[in-house]
């Protein structure tokens, strides 16, 4: 059996090598690819932390050398924690190095960053995209990274895509919730959660761990609806449509699952009910409700459901849903309060939708509608919503105008959808360029 000091030396060497190899991988990728500013900041942080960890490990070894052989193991915990931090960090590094600018919808990421920075307290936020084989998640790193870096996983298969990536706004909502949960704006929501918990669930808590679990369930549901509404406020119905496509892809839009809560998510039907309510309040619904699209019918159908269930270990616990329902109005109020910059988005869309769709029907980038030095309209949000509506309802019309395009040919459809996404992204990029050159002062809404 190795002595405590030998074990320590072994652990320290192994950690040193791990850190060094991660650091080198980052440096190699930086020399080959171009990255967003946020990714670049993350990589700089990796270099900084690598240097600091190497110094810490050397310091631990030095202290251990001055300690009696038998008590050298006291430093082992410190080393294992450092190693754990790097093991976690390294799962972020490779996906971040894969997410170079050729693999990303950069205008969308830029727009999302601008939106995030409009929220008081989050002015310095920057989005680091991680391209992974998994679905979309917000990652809350435990590796002492700067709080302004927002880590969002995007499936590599959707990397440069546009419509499907709109759901990253939901993930940004998680970051906002985590970052601002202790801010005064959240106080009423927090009180409502405490009240709901105390009234419906507190009396049944019997062990110390059951309480954080039960509160965690309510908090997770609250966060999910908050994230949906946050995304919807910024993107309008395009978010709801993208979410339907996303949930369908992962099989959560079936009759059997749509009214079921799980320990982390409210039922999809309830989520769409709240989105519909928000769309009505914000003036979006009257514009899109007449669309001849399954997405619109589905939202209407789901929102009309009134019976939900939450089962765990084959036992129904309706009290959780009852408690949660009392919290929902406070989520709406909070989202409205922190996103005043989104108030006029639907109005612009209503005014410019037909013109944008007309551009797309003729294969013209909608930035043609932007006027240098004029009012900042149409906004990127209007372009996105018009493009999504066009995608849902008018693709066959576009195809019929082009020679050799067959409506039922999937390859042809794919090509045209990709072009539609590219025209939309170009429109947003041009809007951003005008903004950057000072001719347009809006950030996107």
């Amino acid at each position: 059996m190795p002595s405590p000091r030998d074990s320590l030396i072994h652990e320290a060497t192994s950690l040193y090598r791990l850190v060094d190899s991660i650091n080198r991988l980052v440096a190699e990728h930086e020399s080959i690819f171009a990255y967003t500013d946020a990714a670049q900041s993350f990589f700089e942080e990796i270099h900084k932390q690598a240097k600091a960890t190497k110094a810490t490990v050397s310091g631990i070894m030095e202290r251990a050398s001055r300690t009696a052989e038998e008590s050298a193991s006291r430093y082992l915990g410190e080393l294992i924690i450092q190693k754990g931090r790097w093991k976690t960090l390294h799962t972020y590094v490779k996906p971040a190095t894969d997410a170079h600018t050729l693999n990303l919808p950069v205008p969308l990421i830029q727009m999302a960053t601008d939106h995030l920075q409009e929220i008081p307290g989050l002015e310095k936020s920057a989005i680091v995209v991680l391209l992974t084989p998994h679905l979309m998640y917000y990652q809350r790193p435990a590796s002492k990274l700067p709080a302004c870096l927002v880590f969002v996983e995007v499936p590599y298969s959707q990397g440069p895509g546009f419509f499907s990536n709109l759901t990253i706004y939901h993930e940004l909502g998680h970051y906002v919730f985590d970052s601002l949960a202790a801010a005064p704006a959240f106080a009423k929501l927090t009180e409502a959660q405490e009240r709901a918990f105390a009234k419906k669930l507190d009396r049944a808590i019997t062990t110390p761990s059951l309480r954080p679990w039960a509160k965690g369930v309510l908090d997770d549901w609250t966060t999910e609806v908050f994230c949906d509404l946050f995304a919807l406020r910024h993107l309008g119905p395009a978010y709801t449509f993208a979410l339907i496509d996303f949930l369908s892809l992962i099989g959560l839009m079936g009759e059997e699952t749509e009214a079921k809560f799980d320990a982390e998510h409210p039922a999809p039907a309830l989520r769409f009910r709240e989105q519909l309510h928000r769309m009505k309040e914000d003036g979006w619904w009257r514009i899109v409700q007449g669309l001849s699209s399954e997405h619109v019918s589905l939202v209407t159908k789901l929102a009309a459901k009134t019976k939900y269930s939450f089962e765990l270990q084959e036992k129904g616990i309706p009290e959780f849903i009852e408690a949660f329902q009392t919290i929902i109005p406070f989520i709406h109020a909070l989202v409205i309060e922190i996103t005043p910059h989104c108030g006029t988005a639907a109005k612009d869309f209503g005014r410019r939708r037909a013109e944008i769709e007309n551009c797309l029907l003729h294969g013209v980038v909608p930035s043609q509608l932007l006027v240098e030095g004029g009012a900042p309209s149409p906004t990127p949000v209007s372009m996105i919503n018009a493009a999504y509506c066009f995608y849902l309802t008018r693709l066959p019309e576009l195809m019929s105008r082009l020679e050799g395009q067959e409506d039922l040919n999937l390859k042809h459809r794919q090509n045209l959808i990709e072009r539609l996404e590219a025209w939309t992204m170009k429109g947003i990029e041009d809007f951003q360029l005008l903004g950057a050159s000072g001719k347009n002062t809006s950030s996107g809404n």
Partner: protein
Amino acid sequence: MPTDLQSRTQYLALAEFCQGVISPLWDYVDGAAPLPTDILRRASQALQSVRSGDSYKFGQRPAAALGSYEQVRTLEEVWRTPQQLDGALKLTDELLDPYAAEGTTKVRARKVIELFSKLQTKALWNFEQPKQTAPPDVGELCRALETA
């Protein structure tokens, strides 16, 4: 990236919390530093909040040291009965007794190191396991809700 990564990093945070108590206490035992009273007070408060059931606060999720289900569950696995948690809390509080003799305090410090080392070992073990934390047995919760 494993989807349960976030659950697992909760364990790492708990291990770090323990390390934050263990390291300065070792320095104290070695005579290299004074008794870390502020750290011990914070540790005592964290244990106290678990005992009183308010360790998880809405709106402060990422901030609490012993706030999450995963962390409290780990603590329950190490200190299996409420009495053991009370014992750990008592020992930590006794260490803060300003009238205790230095020899006594050092003995107590070693015991607290041992307690938090056990908790840390369990936390690091859980961190290494590629599985999600099992949810609690909700049977008792359901029965209590039905009878209330």
